[in-house]
Each structure stands twice: as structure tokens, then as C-alpha cells.
């Protein structure tokens, strides 16, 4: 049984972020914007609550900060990698392939974050998820060695996400 406050305000942190981002995007720090932002911060979590049945449980949220740093760094490396493939490889030299990568993450938020990270990082793109949510389908732009790619995802991203999410 949910308490009434929980029902009206299911995701307090999400609400705070929505209000804050409304103020930032509107770039006006006035009372009027705060009211509008506050309204959106309350309404959006309520309207989308059916798709967010549980609160994401973070075991060690502070570890998200180094994680974001690593991903930002990898986005730069990734763009250089893609630029190299686009500019210097002939189309018939590009060895694109699909790779199935199993994941032991269970929280939907963690899997979503892993999938997003894979898309933004060197040479890989999340193409699909298995119906039971245990395997990610990765498309690699130029991967002569699929096994190395799998190990990289496990050690670089998945292990860190496992420490962040409960």
C-alpha cells in the first residue's frame, strides 16, 4: 500500500531535476519560471509513473561521477575512431559485425545505461536487447576481434555499473 504522498510525488529526485532543468533551459530564474518548473516537475513523474514502477536503487551514487568522466573521454576516442574509419578505410575494408554480449546486470536502469554507454563509445552500437533482457546485440563498425570487444565492455563498463547499482 502506497502512502498518499508517494502516490502524488512518486519520484522526488526526478521532480527536483525536472524543475531545475526547466529553470536552466528557460534561462530565467524568476518566480514565474519556478512555478511552471514546479508544475512540470510534479506532472511529468505522475504521467510517466506507469513506466517507472520502482525507484532506481543506487548503491554508490558517488561512483557515477568517475563513470561519466570515463564515458566522456571515451566519446572523444570513439569519434576519432569513427573518423578514422570514415576517412581512411575503403568501404570494402570495413569489417562490420554483430556481436551478442551477455550482461549480468539486472536493474533496468543499469542495463539502459550500459546500452547507452555502448552506443556512445568506440566502434560499437547497441542494436537490440534479447527479450529476457540478458543479452545485448551490439553492432561493431570495425571489429577484427569480437572477443576483445566483449571483454572490454565487461571490464570497462559493466563492472563499474555493477558497483554503482544495487
Amino acid at each position: 500500500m502506497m502512502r498518499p504522498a508517494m502516490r502524488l510525488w512518486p519520484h522526488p529526485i526526478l521532480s527536483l531535476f525536472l524543475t531545475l532543468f526547466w529553470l536552466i533551459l528557460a534561462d530565467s530564474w524568476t518566480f514565474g519560471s519556478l512555478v511552471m518548473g514546479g508544475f512540470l516537475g510534479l506532472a511529468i513523474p505522475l504521467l510517466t509513473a506507469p513506466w517507472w514502477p520502482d525507484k532506481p536503487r543506487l548503491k554508490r551514487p558517488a561512483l557515477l561521477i568517475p563513470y561519466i568522466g570515463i564515458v566522456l573521454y571515451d566519446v572523444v576516442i570513439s569519434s576519432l575512431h569513427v573518423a578514422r574509419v570514415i576517412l581512411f578505410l575503403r568501404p570494402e575494408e570495413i569489417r562490420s559485425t554483430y556481436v551478442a554480449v551477455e550482461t549480468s546486470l539486472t536493474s533496468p536502469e543499469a542495463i539502459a545505461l550500459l546500452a547507452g554507454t555502448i552506443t556512445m563509445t568506440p566502434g560499437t552500437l547497441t542494436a537490440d536487447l534479447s527479450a529476457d533482457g540478458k543479452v545485448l546485440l551490439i553492432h561493431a563498425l570495425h571489429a577484427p576481434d569480437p572477443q576483445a570487444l566483449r571483454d572490454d565492455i565487461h571490464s570497462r563498463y559493466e563492472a563499474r555499473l555493477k558497483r554503482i547499482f544495487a
Partner: protein
Amino acid sequence: MSLAATIIEIIAAALLVAGGLFAVIGSLGLLRLKQSMQRLHAPTKATTLGIGSALVAVAVHIWLNEDRLALRELAVALFFFLTAPLSALFLSKAHLFRSEDAAKLPPTGTKAGWATLSEDNPAEPSHPQDRKA
């Protein structure tokens, strides 16, 4: 103009040039790559970084000349990084659904098939709330 301001201005200019270069490379990728799935890589990575660096350049410029933090530009950059993987995922799902690639996919290794393609095997709801509905 002081030396520090000049250096910061040079950094902003360099970011702007890098941003433009990556945007061009991303678009070039759309032209040069042959398969649909390969073409998805160019805009998700190169173009996102291109737009990201242009926005950071704007933020640096505003910080230098108007002496305020350009939170809005940084927030827009953040949203680009959050939404690029989602649009890429939806495009690739649409591609899998329509193309003959489906027959060539590696097996999942579990009982369930790939989510986009399995018709007889709907995703097992992972939340008790969903099961009631």
C-alpha cells in the same frame, strides 16, 4: 585583452573548429558508408561530439565575455548525449525489423530471442506491477 583571456578565446576557437570538423566527418560518414547499420555510427558519435564541442565553445565564450555560467548550453549538450543512443537504438530496431539482417544475427544464447524479432515470446515483465495490468 589579457593573456589568460586570449588563451581562453583560443581554446573556444579550437573547440569551434573541432566541432565543425566532427560534424562534417559525421555527415561524410553518412555518404561514404555502405550499410545502414554502419551509417548509424557516424551521426551517433562524430556528429554528437561535433555539436557538443560547439556548445562547449559557446559556453566558454559566454563565460569569458559575459562573466556568467552558460548552464543552458551545457544542458543542451547533456541532452544530446542522453538522446543520441536512444534514437540510434530505435533506428536500429526499425532496421532489424525491416531487413534481411535478421537471419544473420548471432544467437542470443538464452531461451529468449531478440526483443525486436520475437513474436511468440513477449518480454517477461520484470516488474510485479506490470504483471497485474
